[in-house]
């Protein structure tokens, strides 16, 4: 959708239709640590996910690519991008991730979508007055 310029003309919209299924899925995730620790760098964060995938699927099953698109160190949230074929594996590895440095932790998957734009807002967090 594109908003028309601020003239008197009626708003113009552009309709875009995806002919094919999107190749990627995007996931917005948050890491919760029981100890409340917050100093995890982006590299450590990705390493944590990679090792979780390898723990569950091994070298062969865990050989798929995914990217950490952005990572917020203060809130421990990140946006991941993964090919559709790896989504179930990545998601289940995140679900079964239970400890970080021998401390309990959990990954809360907040949103999953084939469109990155969809992650810009979350209707479940809206405060309706």
């Amino acid at each position, binding site marked *: 959708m594109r908003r028309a310029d601020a003239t008197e003309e009626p708003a113009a919209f552009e309709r875009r239709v995806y002919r094919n299924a999107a190749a990627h899925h995007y996931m917005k995730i948050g890491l*919760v640590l*029981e100890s409340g620790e917050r100093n995890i760098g982006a590299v450590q964060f990705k390493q944590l996910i990679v090792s979780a995938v390898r*723990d*569950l699927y091994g070298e062969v099953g865990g050989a798929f690519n995914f990217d950490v698109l952005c990572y917020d160190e203060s809130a421990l949230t990140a946006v991941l991008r993964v090919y559709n074929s790896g989504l*179930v594996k990545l*998601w*289940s590895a*995140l*679900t*079964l*991730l*239970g400890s970080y440095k021998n401390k*309990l*932790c*959990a990954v*809360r*998957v907040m949103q*999953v979508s084939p469109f990155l734009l969809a992650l810009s807002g979350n209707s*479940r967090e809206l405060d309706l007055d």
Partner: protein
Amino acid sequence: MALFMDLNVSFSEDKTVLKNIIETAAHLGYSTVAINYTLEFHHKKQEIPKPRPVLDLFEKLPVVQGKSKSITVLNRLTVVATDPSHFRPTAEYKAFDLVAVIPKTEKLFQAACMNFDVNIICVAMSEKLGFFIKRAPVNVAIERGVFFEISYTPAIRDSTLRRYTISNALSLTEICKGKNVIVSSGAEKAIELRGPYDIANLGIVFGLSTEDAKDAVSTNCRSVCLHGKTRSTAFGIIHTMKKSQPANKTEEEDEEEEEEGGPPRKIIKLEK
């Protein structure tokens, strides 16, 4: 849209822990949780635990995320059976909304599938399954409306337990073809809980199809709850209850209600 349920949350004496778990479950989007009381037989006379009222914990139950309703809390009893004499449906069982059994031997598994009056049969996930699950008793259990439970918390705790969980779950889902399976947490801490959509995805790893995996946390759990309600009735048709007598009468009588005509129908009220 089907509501999500987690029918296995471990009871804990510590009120703050239990409160925390229920609050987290509500936040993750579960509409119903069942607090699990485990009954293990160490000596001959084991006392059956009594369910605690939930209102001890909360003045007001937490609101489910994305809904404007508060969470429903049920009570569930799990009997760990190593001997056929361990499962005796007594009046104490009726205090619970759900009754589950963990059969430890093949014979008991068969008996549980065929004729135990239970709602859920748990397949032990934290140990190697000592027997093969056979198709015939499982089919009878499916016919009777008994559900099989996979609990995922052991898989989070330890990598060995994870292997057992996945292999036991795969052998179960292979035999029952994804029907009558529920996936629940068995969490003892709030951090061990996972969101309902995560579990629906995890079900795929356990060998369920995408739809079956989602049913395992939603519609199948609802069926279990309804099946639990029929336990207090006769064949789900007749429900008898004591009617409080007016003060001038001393004699107590059981009042019986019966629905006549038409096919047999559940007269318990179906919720939602």
